[in-house]
């Protein structure tokens, strides 16, 4: 296996200098390694707390091949329970959402409370001699090794010793708040829409993390039909990309104005701006109000993404736009297939009319029918197909945009007085974030 090791070292070394071996987007061996070394310890998003608002509510979600029931028990506490009966291994819950106080295994009738405790075991005394043969009282469905949430986003880690979620997210929380904390009530989400694409999971994560360069070309049709005015090539490059610890994203540069004016420019109603000012820190407000940057797409390592855009969706003569937020999970199925889970998200305190129109904006732009998304997926499927062959093993894709040959940046990083967020930021087209994401990927893959 010495040859195999050095082949991996070669891949990781190339990835780190921004020259991406094309086969990493369709490679069975690397996918096995991702399962073993990356998804076995990363924090993976599974659900938002607003999907299970009431006691007894549950959704069933997977981390790769492992099914978990995400429940809210009778005390309001959230659990992530491995969906496998302790006796013969049936899935105790075969629905994907609902409300239940108990889950009863269809095979032999073992019953579990929605906090995981085993409460029913038919013929316990006759079959096992009671607790002497099988101690029922101490048994529970196996909980996820690690469970934590931030702003209602629920994450699982398969590693009981994973660093605390808040430490993992670290500085990226500053940016997560823009998407997930717009009032004290927080987000409510709908969905997800779920569909499978014949594309490697990393491609979407990289794209949302930092690919401002694709927007004017891939999404030219969106500008053509007047749905979203921002991605014109000349305008898109005035945005900045940022990277902070475990994630990064793209922004658009807004026209001059105060915080309130700029929030109104992207379509936030006055009452929402008031809520937002109550929960965003002064630094978070400065990023918009002083620096003039508005968040757009972002990714959090390894496979969670966000988008916030402000299209024109209503049939009216004026130029009114309005924002929408979407949460996105790139759930790996294999080296060349991904299940996309795409939620619509809106602040719970938003006015009903805003919620309705923001939902409309989401459907027109992103998700299974979204007009942005349609063209993205076409590219990613094509890329994945081509990456599976022998020639892709001889090709290094240049992902060095933004770097000169001696690794100096083409454009200097923004000073902190021009960009009030943590991490580092840079105006214009570059692939800093795609490289940062893949560097984290490389770090995980080399740790046995």
């Amino acid at each position, binding site marked *: 296996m010495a040859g195999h090791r050095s082949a991996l070292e070669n891949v990781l070394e190339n990835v780190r200098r921004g020259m991406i071996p094309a086969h990493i987007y369709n490679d069975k061996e690397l996918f096995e390694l991702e399962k073993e070394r990356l998804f076995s310890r990363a924090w993976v998003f599974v659900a938002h707390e607003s999907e299970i608002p009431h006691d007894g509510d549950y959704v069933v979600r997977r981390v790769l091949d492992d099914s978990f029931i995400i429940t809210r028990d009778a005390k309001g506490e959230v659990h992530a329970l491995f969906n496998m009966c302790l006796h013969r291994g049936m899935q105790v819950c075969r629905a994907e959402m609902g409300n239940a106080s108990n889950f009863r295994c269809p095979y032999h009738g073992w019953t579990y409370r929605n906090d995981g405790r085993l409460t029913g075991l038919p013929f316990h005394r006759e079959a096992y001699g009671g607790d002497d043969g099988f101690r029922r009282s101490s048994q529970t469905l196996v909980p996820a090794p690690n469970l934590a949430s931030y702003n209602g986003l629920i994450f699982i880690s398969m590693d009981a010793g994973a660093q605390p979620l808040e430490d993992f997210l670290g500085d990226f929380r500053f940016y997560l708040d823009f998407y997930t904390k717009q009032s004290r009530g927080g987000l409510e989400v709908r969905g997800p829409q779920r569909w*499978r694409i014949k594309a490697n999971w990393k491609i979407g994560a990289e794209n949302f993390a930092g690919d401002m360069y694709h927007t004017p070309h891939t999404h030219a049709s969106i500008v053509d039909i007047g749905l979203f005015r921002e991605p014109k090539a000349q305008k898109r490059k005035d945005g900045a990309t940022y990277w902070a610890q475990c994630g990064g994203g793209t922004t658009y540069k807004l026209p001059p104005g105060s915080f309130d004016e700029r929030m109104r420019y992207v379509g936030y109603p006055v009452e929402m701006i008031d809520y937002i000012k109550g929960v965003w820190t002064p630094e978070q407000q400065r990023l918009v109000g002083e620096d003039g940057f508005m968040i757009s797409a972002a990714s959090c390592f390894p496979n969670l993404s966000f988008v916030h855009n402000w299209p024109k969706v209503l049939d009216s003569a004026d130029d009114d736009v309005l924002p929408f937020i979407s949460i996105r999970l790139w759930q790996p199925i294999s080296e060349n297939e991904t299940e996309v889970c795409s939620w619509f998200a809106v602040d719970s305190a938003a006015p009903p009319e805003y919620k309705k129109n923001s939902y409309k904006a989401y459907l027109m732009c992103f998700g299974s029918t979204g007009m942005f998304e*349609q*063209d993205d997926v076409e590219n990613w499927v094509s890329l994945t197909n081509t990456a599976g062959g022998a020639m892709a093993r001889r090709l290094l894709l240049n992902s060095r945009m933004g770097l000169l040959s001696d690794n100096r940046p083409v454009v200097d990083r923004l000073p902190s007085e021009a960009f009030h967020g943590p991490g580092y930021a840079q105006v214009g087209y570059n692939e800093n974030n795609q490289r940062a994401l893949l560097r984290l990927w490389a770090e995980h893959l080399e740790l046995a």
Partner: protein
Amino acid sequence: MTTSAELGKPVGKPLPFNDTRHLQAHQFLVDEAYLLDAQDYETWLDTLADDIRYLMPVRVTTALGAGFDTSPGMAHFDEDKYSLSRRVARFATEHAWTEDPPSRMRHFITNVRTFACEDEAHLVVESAELLFRSRGDVNEAALVSCGRRDVLRSDRDQWKLAGRTILVDESVLRMQNLAVFL
């Protein structure tokens, strides 16, 4: 907004297959299928009523007796004529890469039955649809199976589609996107 379920109130049993209204409704769906196969979307738009609601909920797996099998508040399509017209306008640009080259498509329509409504201006038409969509030469073709409940409205000498609810038969679509109409 009204759904096709609220718009048309079917009365009684399905119309006999030799009823003229059933024959007209059936022909409407078959003619529409040819327009969709050919991606002749401008012509298709003209067959839609101005107040159409075009809805395709997200299906979910729920326990028997849960009382729902669609994702609350979430759809794949939830369209009015304006948003449909934007989608059609996009296909007419030179930059809708997802359908350039175009898919090879066949909309199979079957199990059609027609119901009269309380008012004579409307018909409710149920149908089963299978969409076969092939792109390129590497990946397997994709299928979408669904049931549809349509409301047709008589508009001078022709029928127009006033409402459509598409009940897809998968909770996870096996199609890369829905850059198509069903």
